[in-house]
């Protein structure tokens, strides 16, 4: 177990390093300097800026500067959000994304698991059909359509919540609801598939044969295995939800992490782009590790593969 965690952590660090290098390489492909957009600047000021951020050095030195900065938690300053370093920016935006992402995940699970399980327990009935069609519709309803509609209905018409911004204590509700509804469709689908497949297996027949009641069969025998496909989806999904959805944060004007992913990539803020990408990769690595451990606990046949 310990060996497994250590080896996966080392692999994860290699992945994060690779993500940093790839992001840097893509940013450097763009020929213009990050500060070309700023006008009314004398050449001396520009040169001083370039020297301060190390942009006058050859690219391997720049890369090393960034990577060693992140590795020692000595975060480089942002090029565009002056006076703040990448660590501060992420530390400020991340809680906002978490405040939306965690309720969204809970909504998705609370809606998706019961509906998916119900559909699987009554295959080919009206309930099953309805749940399946509803979840397909949810998968096909993109957040860029659902988000504005949710804002229109609950924000503008019913006036229950603010339409946009991050001022009141309940401003997380609409974005979390939008994301939760969309993700619940995926959860329901995976739950239905997982449970149906598990219920068809031999050990379920054995459990029924020895006289276990139907609830006992479902809850004690089937549920553990049936959750595995869902669990595999939840790892990356949780990382994505916690780092913010670009579209939903844009629709509801929420100051989460998502905006920094987009703006830093487009306006050439190299340290912030590298920092957010590495942060996302870190969460992915961590959640995948967690998923693998839980998976091995639920199903001894899978085991811990390094």
């Amino acid at each position, binding site marked *: 177990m310990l060996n497994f965690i250590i080896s996966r952590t080392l692999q994860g660090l290699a*992945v*994060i390093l*690779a*993500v940093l290098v*790839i*992001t840097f390489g*893509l*940013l450097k*492909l*763009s*020929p*213009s300097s990050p500060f070309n957009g700023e006008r009314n600047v004398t050449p001396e000021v520009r040169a001083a800026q370039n020297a301060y951020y190390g942009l006058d050095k050859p690219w391997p030195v720049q890369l090393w500067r960034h990577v060693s900065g992140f590795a020692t938690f000595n975060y480089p300053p942002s090029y565009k959000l002056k006076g703040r370093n990448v660590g501060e920016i992420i530390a400020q935006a991340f809680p906002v994304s978490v405040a939306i992402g965690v309720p969204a995940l809970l909504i998705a699970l609370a809606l998706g698991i019961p509906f998916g399980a119900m559909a699987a327990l009554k295959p080919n009935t009206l309930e099953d059909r309805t749940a399946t069609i509803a979840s*397909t*519709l949810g*998968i*096909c*309803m*993109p957040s*860029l*359509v659902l*988000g*504005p*509609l949710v*804002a*229109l209905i609950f924000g*503008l018409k019913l006036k229950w919540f603010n339409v946009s911004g991050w001022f009141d204590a309940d401003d997380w509700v609409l974005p979390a609801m939008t994301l939760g509804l969309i993700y619940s469709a995926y959860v329901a689908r995976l739950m239905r598939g997982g449970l*149906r*497949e598990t219920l*068809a297996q031999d050990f379920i027949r054995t459990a029924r044969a020895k006289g276990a009641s139907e609830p006992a069969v479902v809850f004690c025998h089937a549920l553990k295995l049936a959750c595995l496909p869902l669990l595999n989806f939840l790892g*990356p999904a949780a990382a*994505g939800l916690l*780092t913010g959805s*670009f*579209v939903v944060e*844009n*629709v509801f004007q929420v100051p989460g992490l998502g905006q920094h*992913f*987009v703006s830093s*990539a*487009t306006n050439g803020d190299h340290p912030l*782009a590298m920092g*957010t*990408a590495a942060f*996302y*990769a870190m969460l*992915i*690595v961590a959640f995948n590790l967690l998923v693998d451990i839980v998976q091995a606990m639920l199903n001894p046949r899978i085991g811990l593969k390094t």
Partner: protein
Amino acid sequence: MNPPANNSRISESPWQAAWRRLRRNRFAIGGATFIVVLMLVCWIAPGYSAYGQSQQDLNLQASPPSAAHWMGTDSLGRDIATRVLYGGRMSLLIGLAATAVALIIGVIFGGISGWIGGRLDAFLMRIVDVLYAFPFVVFVILLNVAVGEVVKNWIATSSGLSVKAANEWRSQAELLILFVAIGAVEWLTMARVVRGQVLALKKLEFITAARSCGARTPMILSRHLLPNVLGPVIIYASLTVPGVMLLEATLSFLGLGIQPPAASWGTLIADGAKEIESSPWMLIFPGTFFTCTLLALNFLGDGLRDALDPKSLQ
């Protein structure tokens, strides 16, 4: 998919059996019909529309649906029905073209990885793992921005085109870069699918049999391996199209994809989202078309999976 010599029905090829199963699936056939009709309408109807894509009627700015403008007009007085059709062309085109890019990269990458195996396989799959840990929207944006600037600079400085021609080429190039950038992100799962399939197939007896009969590698790849990989590839490709269209819409929504005056469903939805309070029809019509198209594509993809891979039905 089973190897060709399967023991199912009398003289029915696996493809005929798949077609028979697909025809029985009402959702899949409905989805396919919807897509075909939509494509025909998007390519033919704008020619008969009374309005152009960018034609403005400033007397009717942001007017609700009416007899003259079936889906209303947008805040610049343009006919939304016409724009939805032109936008549909763009969205469908990107969906198909970017899927083709993803398909080519994924099949070649996964094929090489699975066929050669060993260390190369381990190395190539590590690359895929790393790219999976990448925030994919960021990856598309970076690719789009970086490659876009390189290409635009090249067009402006060293291609020797006149300014007007260069401008025209630039918008074509932007579109092409978008296809490639989206395709370059969406190939990962395709590569895994193909690799897994090739890895399993190459150990089977019929490959050994073909080899012992003297078949060379190109022959084995094209006649024996490819037909067996085709099923999963078709299934996955049909499920990639909606994913690609969603990614394009997301990028366009964020202002990074299709640039005006061109329009796609993503840009129309973005325009509508800004005016959601005063003129909800600006979002509802393109949004409905987009959602229905994704739904139809998903039904078709699920139907193809059930038809081509009967095992998934239990």
